[in-house]
């Protein structure tokens, strides 16, 4: 009797495993990896920050950019998903040992490890996404973004969209994470700017930070906090910060008439459940930035220092009809001015 149950359970478990388990192959083939290190071969490796390449956020966008650029150059690309921050250096070493031409490291936590690797491997080009590069190494380029500008632009949009005058920002993550803080503060200043321009009394943007063990990984907290805001009449909410923020977006989508704004990438595609409310996202063009640096490495124009990637508000998609043409034009104007720096965001760098 027991044996039969055991067999049954085992068979069921295996069936469940087999179902939906699809190849998670990390490689995209145009040339073979064995060619890496030979003349004419172009190999791009990417080391993620703790997390997966399908994180709907910066790991994913950076990988998409690197992959596309490598494919365009007829090269080979592959990634490693980091489990433990202490492995940053050894994960970089794995690519270096196979003589990859370019190694992309994702996330500001990897800045030290990348700078050290750039010294250790002078023949390899390093691209540090979200890393401010303070070194003089010619083979290391930091890809940085002005998150405050991106936040300011969508904040400006929010200032025009709000009917109740109450806007809010939910940060998945504490204020000690620089990109999070800059997005949030930029957003609040953008709202205030729009308020002043309209000569309308808008409440100061309410912000909430989340620290602790699950700062980025608690969608239920993000959703509940969003509901709390919604029930107090806040009608445009910026949800920034990993899975916590994504949870907030998904919850806002269920409230009629409320708008939500995503972060990092155009979340219309990555968080489809948010589409009913997602009017825009505070974008850093991670994919484009990574791709152009990889292309530079290929054509030889790569230089060290820092490369400032572009920021923008993501397209309105289906919600374009909800944003008056006049406002769309204003946002476009302000975007140009903020990017050029003629409108300062007022956020401490």
């Amino acid at each position, binding site marked *: 009797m027991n044996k039969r149950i055991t067999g049954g359970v085992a068979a069921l478990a295996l069936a469940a495993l087999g179902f939906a*388990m699809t190849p*998670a192959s990390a490689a995209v083939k145009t040339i073979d990896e064995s060619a890496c290190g030979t003349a004419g071969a172009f190999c791009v490796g990417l080391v993620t920050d703790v997390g997966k390449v399908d994180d709907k956020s910066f790991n994913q966008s950076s990988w998409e950019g690197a992959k596309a650029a490598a494919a365009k150059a007829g090269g080979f690309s592959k990634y*490693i*998903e980091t*489990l433990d921050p*202490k492995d940053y250096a050894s994960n970089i070493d794995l690519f270096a040992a196979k003589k990859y031409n370019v190694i992309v490291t994702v996330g500001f936590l990897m800045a030290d490890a990348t700078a050290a690797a750039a010294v250790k491997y002078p023949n390899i080009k390093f691209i540090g996404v979200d890393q401010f590069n303070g070194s003089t190494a010619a083979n290391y380029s930091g890809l940085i973004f002005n998150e405050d500008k991106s936040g300011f632009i969508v904040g400006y949009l929010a200032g025009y969209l709000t009917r109740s005058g109450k806007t809010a920002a939910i940060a998945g993550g504490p204020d*000690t994470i*620089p990109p999070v803080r800059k997005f949030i503060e930029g957003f609040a200043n953008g709202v205030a700017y729009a308020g002043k321009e309209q000569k309308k009394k808008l409440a100061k943007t309410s912000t909430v930070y989340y620290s602790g*063990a699950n700062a980025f990984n608690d969608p239920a907290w993000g959703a509940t906090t969003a509901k709390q805001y919604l029930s107090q009449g806040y009608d445009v909410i910026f949800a920034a910060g990993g899975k916590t923020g994504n949870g907030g977006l998904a919850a806002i989508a269920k409230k009629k008439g409320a708008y939500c704004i995503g972060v990092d990438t155009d979340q219309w595609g990555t968080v489809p459940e948010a589409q009913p409310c997602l009017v825009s996202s505070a974008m850093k063009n991670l994919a484009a930035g990574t791709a152009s640096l990889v292309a530079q490495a290929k054509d030889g124009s790569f230089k060290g220092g820092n490369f400032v990637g572009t920021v923008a508000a993501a397209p309105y998609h289906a919600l374009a009809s909800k944003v008056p043409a006049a406002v769309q034009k204003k946002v476009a104007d302000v975007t140009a001015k903020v990017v050029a720096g003629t409108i300062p965001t007022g956020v401490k760098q």
Partner: protein
Amino acid sequence: MAGKKFSRTWLTPVVAVLVAFAIGALLIYIQGADPLKAYQSLFSHAFGSWSGIAKTLGKATPLVLSGLAVTIGLRAGLFNIGVQGQLVTGAFAAAWAGYFIHGLPIYIHLPLALIFGITFGAGVGLIAGALKAYRGIHEVITTIMLNSIILALVDYLAGHVFQEPGQILARTPHILPSATIPKIFSLPSGFFFAILLAYGVWWVFQRTTSGFRLETVGRNKSAAWYAGISVKRAVLIAMAVGGGIAGLGGGIESLGVIGRFEPTFNTGLGFDGITIALLGRANPLGVIPGAILIGGMRGAAASMQFDAGVAPEIVDLILALVLFCVTAPFLAKWLKSTEVGAKITSGWGN
């Protein structure tokens, strides 16, 4: 006779690991990757080279200690889920002492910094212990709550109060050379220390009255009470010692591996400690192979993905299978081991 005893203790776990890896191979195959290539990569990177061994042992060090911290609790009838918090506190305190205190020679500075880690880790354990002993609050509640409190606290401390000057990230300055743990033949020396400590704890439980007292409290509180053993004292000691060992683990991470305190760099170690203590059947020596196994697999997961394209989650799945095969009775029965259905924990204590 001795041989028979040896096989009884060791055969089941070894076969269990083999069975788990066999099932794991099937999973890798279903995933569309080559299991042989994956395992070859795993073993050559974890155990096949000097640097691989160094990495495995380095990863195993905090795991031995966190496993030990959970084990001491289990022996005394306590379920210490707060090892993560205790470890992080120790990591912070040791790093602080490692950069803030100047002008000491290494043979004073390094032990002092480690003592900071131990003391603060023990302090966090003691909070839970005292709340249990004097106010009757269950350690499962307090340790879970303390984990959350501490993670927010160290984030604030490293991000605002003791932040590296000119730095935008939440992290302390780098520790001084005089507080850095040296390597022995490029192997992390903390590991040998952890092994010694595991033997020490084993010896205490095996040979001393203090160990016996803790264990008696763990088995049966009222019996301990009738035997004149102070239950309160035992709870305080078990939580403080466990917290101290976890704090030491954190301290070794800060002073030997990371070189500073950074809040995100110590994730998951405390929770792996629970798995390791259970794998080791709450035996202080049993945590060593478990920690090496988990340390090796976690350390080589990246190369397994690099070489064979296997998603790193496979490590967790194999781990669950190992734990299952070690504990499930069919294997032990088949191997005629005596440990069928052995009970290690006692629920939430009493």
